[in-house]
């Protein structure tokens, strides 16, 4: 009865039939989705297309479609600017950060999820505080500390400072995954003669494999994307990471948009494909612990 009354009321209000209203709703929805997709995809399209345009076409004959395709921008970036060295530096730093971070934070997360001890609550909060302490506050003291340790201008120093954000993030995310591992499985393993460390390695980590993969990707991306600390710490050309190398391309008066966008494509498209494929894991991981966006 109530439903019929409500429907009649809406019918009277705007004089449209139920099916007409439904159609209008569908069209409006389609329009919004299309506009949103365009707004998301156009900048990505523009990045790719600019990287393939002839340098003289980019500013002189601007158009939504390229007149001719060229690989010249990629050649300039890779051969003249030596961008491969920067990609290599970024890979070294990001992979090292990922390995150290996933290793140490699995231990820490396991400890805080499975054991009851005096300072556990305090520690949990400290990891969260560390996660939320912004780089914009830490970059000045970190540059002083790294200089004192003679680690400024080195990739290893960069690895150390990137742990400031990757360790708390991966510990926080892994705690969520470890909680989901049934305690009984571990207890069974202990009865079967494994020690606690064995239970972590043989039971908990394999069962959290999707979580570990997601955490590894997040940690890798975090290090791969970082600009401010690299800008402050790295002074020599040979140690520059990919974001840093592109940053220095925009300090001139005339911006070399073609090579810049070629660099943007090379540093983002592999990651975007990875996220697209591993989407399900990534979303679960992100909603478990809120990853920086």
């Amino acid at each position, binding site marked *: 009865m109530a*439903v019929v009354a*409500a429907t009649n009321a809406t019918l009277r209000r705007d004089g449209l039939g139920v099916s007409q209203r439904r159609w209008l709703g569908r069209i409006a929805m389609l329009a*919004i989705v299309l506009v*949103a*997709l365009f*707004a*998301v*995809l*156009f*900048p*990505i399209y*523009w990045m790719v297309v*600019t990287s393939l345009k002839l340098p003289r076409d980019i*500013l002189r004959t*601007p158009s*939504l479609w390229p007149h001719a395709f060229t690989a010249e921008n990629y050649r300039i970036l890779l051969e003249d600017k030596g961008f491969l060295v920067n990609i290599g530096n970024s890979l070294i730093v990001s992979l090292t950060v990922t390995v150290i971070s996933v290793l140490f934070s699995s*231990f820490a997360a396991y*400890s*805080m*999820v*499975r*054991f009851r001890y005096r300072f556990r609550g305090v*520690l949990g*909060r*400290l*990891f*969260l*505080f*560390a996660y*939320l*302490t*912004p*780089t*914009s*506050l*830490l*970059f*000045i*003291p970190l*540059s*002083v*500390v790294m200089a004192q340790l003679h680690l400024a201008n080195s990739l290893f120093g960069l690895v150390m400072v990137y*742990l*400031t954000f990757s*360790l708390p993030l991966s510990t926080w995310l892994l705690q969520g995954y470890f909680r989901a591992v049934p305690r009984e499985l571990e207890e069974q393993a202990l009865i079967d003669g494994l020690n606690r*460390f064995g239970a972590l390695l043989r039971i908990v980590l394999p069962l959290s494999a999707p979580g570990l993969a997601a955490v590894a990707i997040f940690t890798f991306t975090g290090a791969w994307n970082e*600009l401010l600390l690299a800008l402050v710490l790295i002074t020599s050309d040979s140690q520059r990471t990919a*974001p840093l190398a592109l*940053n220095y391309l*925009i300090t001139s008066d005339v911006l070399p948009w073609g090579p810049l*966008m070629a660099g943007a494509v090379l540093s*983002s498209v592999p990651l*975007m494909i*990875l*996220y*697209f494929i591993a989407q399900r894991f990534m*979303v679960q991981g992100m909603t478990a612990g809120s*990853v*920086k*966006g």
Partner: protein
Amino acid sequence: MTAATRLSAFAYVLVAPAALLLVGLVGYPFLYAIYISFTDAVVGNAGKWIGFANFTYLASNPSFLSSILNTVILVVVTDGLKLGIGLGLALLVNREFVGRGLVRSFLMLPWAMPAFVVFLTWRLLYQPIGGGLSLVLKAVGLNLGIVDWLGQPQTALPSVIVATVWRGFPFWFISILAGLQTIPKELYEAARMDGASGWQQFWAVTFPSIRTVIIVTTLLSSIWTANSFENVWLLTQGGPSDATMVFPVLAYFGMQTQRIGEAAAVSVATLPVLIVLVLFATTLMHRDDD
């Protein structure tokens, strides 16, 4: 040694490497930042204690005052837009339709793009000549002529805001969508049986279920947006004439002048607000297993 103490010793050993690294690399620098903001330290010279002198200097520094105002505008406006767009799109994608999974994947893409790539690309989009934005506006019939989006004070901050929202909305979209998907369908059926309209269903069923998600996302996003460096640095470097200056960029410029005490004071001055936000966020996020 009893079994219990052995076990907790093992627990401490496991947590120690990460905890010690964080004490050294976050805890110590954090306190050190506060300390040097009260000194006249320069690079290579620890300086001496000068009390609140750096802060009183900042209080009358026009760049610092604009950076505070711009940061507040940036945070409030981008959070509002990201909430509106994220919630709206999440509600849409939460319905059943053909190609829904694909739409969701595409809407997530800006989140998968590194921030430095996003803001370099937007800098190109905003170019007065050859920038994609002017070309698109022209193609849909909005011919504004040559607009130097990032070069004039009136349009620079809105331009930074649009690019920041573009990069940031997927995080809200995915978080809210995940929240929506935990709501049991029966709740909506029950509400419809009681004659609730779409609007009433939203406020009675949907909103209460995603309220915590929205609050946590707002807090996290505010902390990150207020402290973001790449957006302003790569788009405008704070210009034209401080129209887009934010405090992380100002602190970075301060550091380039070697006066690190003064530069640290820029970040430390915002600490009281940051601490309040962080305490709220950690209270909501911290989960104790007991």
